[in-house]
């Protein structure tokens, strides 16, 4: 028994003395506000105060906390600055998904206790041990520095920067993520994964184990899942052949202690290692799957223009990128429970309706017998679009009749989850003497790993985007998704476009120099404008704000260029890059449905099936629905994403929720308004109010005898691409341009970022606070792609070998919002989630080239690669 002064109360904890304090708090004391992101002291999510000093609770054995004061996020409000800190985080948008927020708040609490008015450097030093993958840290710094909520928030009309409507539980520890709300009597499921990239295996008698060993033979329905309806190539439990390190071959299910006590060597599995295919399409390689004999999963192509106009300058190059991990701070977690012939699956996800379809097929039961109830999602970025724990816990709960839960360890999450595709790109571009682009040719192999996942999506999206948002008369592009024994590459913020943008923008820099044009003006000269036709043959009539973005950057460009150091060991550089990004699925149906109800008692409910993974859709869609209805956001009650309670809003991906679900929410609001006005016999401009359960139309109470409903659906108009990539792949596009200013240490090859200025055409910023949060968070991930992130199977399976940017790695970011209204979008809005990330890495590489003359051919631009490039220049 260990005695703690826990949040001010004397508490006895009955757990073994070596128990991690994080586990004791969560499992014994029920304080799940303390999050576990890595169990290794790398992420800081479990930061608590021990006698007022911040510690990673995962590194403190319970015995060493004996007799000491432990303060967790649940006790924060009672600390001197706690409530003010929570309010500041809320009003500045410092919490997005919320999984790192408790750790951030506790670290800030220690700082503020000693230093009530810290400067930025002190904030960065104090919070440097907590990793955040959503915010880019800038809003967090601002919240700690100002510690005030400034003016009261606006009412929440479209265009108002209101704090997130689902924000408060993220600040007091009450938010429930995938690992936080399983029943106490749930069995534990522990996946058994291949330690080999390629191996045959056989599983022998497991009856000696203290837990049940589920294998492929236990799957009641289809032992396969995958994103595409016709590609279910990844088994829940592999059948005799493991195709990547991390492939799941079985799972232990039983009481937690028994499951955890099983050692690797106790498992009755024999492995026969096979040579792995790690390089794309080695000649004569055996097929990973019989269905794709040449290991080429998909090839996407685009042909535009019959002949290239005469060129004066040509540039070409090859670029390679590595695997990039999503590194959401919440590892995959959830649980399932059987209710008769129905299964309920709870946990973190970006795609509940796709999860439902997969679970139903794996169990061999009708769709209506599966209910997916998403928990809060501690970051996704594309990595929680594929199922992970869902089919496994569903099968286990189905077979045992007991609730079954699972929580991936960080190492397991890294090894098993999808990644950003590594790309190997060759591209050639040309322009005329005046700098007008004449041609662009692009071929790339994207390593899609062992299973299809989103590989076809990437191979389809890249050829359409790879020339960037520019007028290019002649384009030939091709991207192949190639199967290997590497981890499955899937969806990751940008679907292959961030990799392609590196090649495209680096070539523009070369051509600009060749023509003697300023690099920014070269882009202005060639930028797409309203009225242009894209290389897929799509006529862009509206909402092409790229030139406005570049013009907004121009004064910053000249200032930053003039300030940079051009002599000495630290050499300054400024880079620029642009991007465009098609919102929603590529030439495929992409519908969303939203629903509003008004009950006779005046209860107004927004039924919203779009999963908010931290980006803010719950707030933005409510603002849109309320505006269309004509009532304030505060009047809405929320029923959020639950496949039994909400309509299918599609997945949270492809930057589509604001645009597609937003348009559905707008339609739902308009439909309910129409119902109301019809009953009130009022004109379209009637003023609605709702108070004390009474709806008034132009101040006249409207009595209802039945619940009114407004449902809205939207599916953006697209035309599938033909064999030459011609069609209308997307209804609308986001555009952006970013500047990066940095210094390179010429002796060490290290990069110090000084400033990023980002101009984004979002059509209309429904909530500028949340839009800026997306931009800053996307930039942080772009910094990681450019400078440090590279997943190597078996070698970077923790967060101290796999590096993501810390609070010290993200410089000052200035965001400029351009609003070139999109008539199809809700109140003119488009998407922002992925556009934020795409231009950052090329802008950084452009700046390195500006500083040193060296062109990086491989990202991440680790210091040794930078030095090699400088030497080779």
């Amino acid at each position, binding site marked *: 028994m260990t005695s703690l002064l826990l949040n001010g109360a004397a508490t006895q904890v009955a757990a073994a003395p*070596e128990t991690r304090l994080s586990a004791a708090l969560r499992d014994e004391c029920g304080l799940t506000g303390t999050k576990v992101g890595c169990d290794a002291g790398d992420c800081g999510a479990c930061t608590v105060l021990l006698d007022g000093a911040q510690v990673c609770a995962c590194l403190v*054995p319970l015995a060493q906390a004996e007799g000491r004061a432990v303060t967790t996020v649940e006790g924060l409000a009672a600390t001197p600055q706690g409530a003010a800190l929570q309010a500041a985080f809320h009003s500045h948008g410092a919490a997005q998904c919320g999984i790192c927020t408790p750790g951030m708040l506790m670290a800030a609490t220690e700082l503020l206790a000693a230093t009530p008015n810290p400067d930025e450097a002190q904030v960065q030093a104090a919070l440097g041990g907590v990793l955040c993958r959503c915010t880019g840290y800038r809003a967090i710094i601002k919240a700690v520095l100002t510690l005030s909520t400034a003016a009261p928030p606006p009412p929440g009309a479209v265009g108002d920067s209101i704090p997130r409507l689902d924000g408060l539980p993220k600040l007091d520890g009450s938010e429930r993520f995938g690992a936080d709300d399983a029943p106490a009597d749930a069995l534990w499921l522990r996946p058994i994964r291949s330690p080999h990239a390629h191996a045959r295996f056989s599983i022998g008698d497991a009856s000696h184990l203290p837990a049940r060993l589920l294998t492929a033979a236990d799957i009641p329905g289809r032992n396969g899942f995958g994103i595409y309806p016709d590609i279910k190539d990844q088994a829940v439990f592999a059948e005799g052949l493991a195709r990547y390190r991390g492939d799941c071959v079985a799972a232990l299910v039983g009481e937690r202690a028994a499951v955890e*006590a099983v050692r690797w060597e106790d498992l009755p599995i024999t492995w026969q290692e096979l040579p792995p295919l790690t390089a794309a399409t080695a000649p004569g390689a055996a097929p990973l799957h019989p269905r794709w004999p040449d290991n080429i999963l998909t090839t996407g192509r685009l042909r535009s223009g019959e002949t290239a106009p005469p060129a004066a300058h040509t540039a070409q190059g090859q670029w390679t990128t590595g695997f990039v991990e999503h590194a959401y701070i919440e590892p995959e977690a959830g649980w399932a429970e059987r209710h008769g012939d129905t299964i309920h699956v709870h946990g973190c996800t970006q795609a509940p309706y796709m999860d439902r379809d997969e679970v139903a097929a794996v169990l061999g039961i009708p769709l209506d017998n599966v209910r997916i109830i998403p928990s809060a999602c501690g970051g996704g970025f594309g990595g929680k679009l594929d199922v992970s724990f869902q089919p496994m816990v569903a099968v286990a709960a189905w077979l045992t009749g007991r609730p079954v839960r699972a929580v991936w360890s960080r190492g397991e999450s890294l090894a098993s989850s999808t990644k950003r595709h590594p790309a190997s790109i060759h591209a050639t571009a040309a322009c005329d003497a005046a700098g007008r682009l004449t041609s662009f040719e692009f071929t790339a192999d994207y390593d899609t790993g062992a299973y299809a996942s989103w590989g076809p999506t990437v191979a389809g999206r890249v050829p359409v985007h790879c020339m960037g948002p520019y007028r290019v008369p002649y384009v030939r592009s091709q991207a192949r998704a190639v199967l290997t024994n590497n981890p499955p590459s899937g969806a990751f913020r940008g679907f292959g476009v961030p990799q392609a943008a590196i090649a495209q923008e680096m070539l523009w820099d070369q051509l600009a120099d060749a023509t003697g044009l300023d690099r920014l003006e070269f882009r202005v000269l060639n930028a797409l404008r309203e009225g242009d036709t894209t290389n897929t043959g799509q006529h862009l009539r509206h909402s092409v704000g790229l030139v406005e973005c570049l013009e907004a950057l121009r004064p910053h460009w000249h200032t930053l260029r003039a300030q940079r150091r051009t002599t000495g060991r630290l050499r300054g550089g400024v880079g620029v890059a642009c991007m465009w990004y098609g919102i929603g699925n590529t030439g495929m149906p992409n519908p969303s449905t939203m629903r509003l109800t008004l009950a006779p008692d005046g209860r107004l409910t927004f039924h919203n099936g779009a999963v908010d993974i931290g980006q803010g859709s719950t707030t933005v869609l409510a603002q849109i629905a309320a505006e269309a209805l004509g009532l304030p956001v505060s009047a809405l009650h929320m029923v959020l994403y639950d496949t039994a309670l909400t309509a299918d809003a599609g997945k949270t991906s492809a930057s589509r929720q604001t645009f597609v679900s937003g348009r559905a929410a707008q339609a739902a609001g308009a439909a309910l308004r129409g119902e109301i006005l019809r009953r009130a016999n009022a004109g379209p401009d009637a003023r609605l109010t709702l108070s004390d359960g009474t709806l008034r139309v132009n101040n006249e109470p409207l009595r209802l005898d039945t619940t009114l409903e407004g449902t809205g659906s939207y599916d953006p108009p697209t035309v599938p691409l033909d064999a030459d990539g011609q069609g209308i792949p997307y209804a609308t596009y986001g555009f952006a341009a970013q500047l990066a200013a940095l210094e390179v240490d010429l002796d*060490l090859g290290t990069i110090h970022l000084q400033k990023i200025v980002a101009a984004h055409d979002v059509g209309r910023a429904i909530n500028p606070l949340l839009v800026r949060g997306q931009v800053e968070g996307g930039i942080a991930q772009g910094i990681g792609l450019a400078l440090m992130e590279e997943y190597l199977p078996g070698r970077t399976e923790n967060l101290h*070998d796999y590096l993501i940017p810390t609070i010290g790695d993200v410089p000052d970011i200035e965001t400029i919002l351009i609003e070139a209204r999109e008539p199809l979008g809700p109140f003119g809005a488009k998407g922002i989630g992925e556009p934020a990330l795409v231009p950052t890495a090329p802008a950084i590489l452009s700046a390195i080239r500006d500083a040193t003359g060296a062109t990086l051919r491989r990202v991440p631009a680790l210091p040794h690669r930078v030095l090699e490039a400088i030497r080779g220049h």
Partner: protein
Amino acid sequence: MTDIRYLAPPTLDEAVRAFAAAQGAARILAGGTDLLVQMRNGMVHPGTIIDIKKIPEMTSITEAADGSFWVGAAVSGAVLAEHPRFGKVWPGVLEAINLIGSTQVQGRASAGGNLCHGSPAADSVPAMVAAGAVLTIAGPNGRRTMPVEAFPVGPGRTSLAAGEILVGFTLPARPAGSGDAYLRMIPRTEMDIAVVGVGVSLTMAGGVVTAARVGLGAAAPTVLLVADAAKVLVGSKLDDAALNAAAAACSAACKPIDDKRGTIVYRTKVAAVLLKRAAAIAADRAQGRA
């Protein structure tokens, strides 16, 4: 579900006896930054845990009358940083220890644990080597001492014999005109493992180096004492010729690997760059300029 014995003895003698009695099935616990992680990953399954944080000798910092320092093996980086004198005398050693992990980890991690982990990239070790720290080790056969550079014998391996416990560090008395510094190269701003680390300790008189020691980390299977680099610095005024010669000696001492963090070529070059930069900082400190 645990059958682990958890002991927190109040004296070193008791710890040594319990450690020996466990016959290899015990693990020493100080801050827990290695042990709890290894247990969580299933890498170790100790039968007994011996918590040394209640042993005064292993958790204390004392400055002797002659100016030498004792730093117990289990002293955390945060506690060392709060000591009123240590950072003034050994700023390089302190900055090296304070580079280990985040603020949260600083409250837990110790120089003793950093050394016993046996990593060639351990940040505190090159600084301790440059400082000329001497270790005290206790075991079933009594106590012994050794220079810190003799302790690591390979990645993850140390010269501790069975049943022995690292008790602490003795940093020698500091002559007037002394200064030290530690620099490391990492791609990220913080919380990262050194690609190369260099510690330099100098004593100077009238602008001339009278004594020097250089420790080099992450450039060979163990942290190295680079005597050749120190030799060319002694007697010099840290002019370019001496610094270039010392840098060359540092590069010559490198026996690095190519890995995900850096290449052989890169590490060899960076060792030279960091030697020069660390020597400049140490010289400034030695001459009271910083």
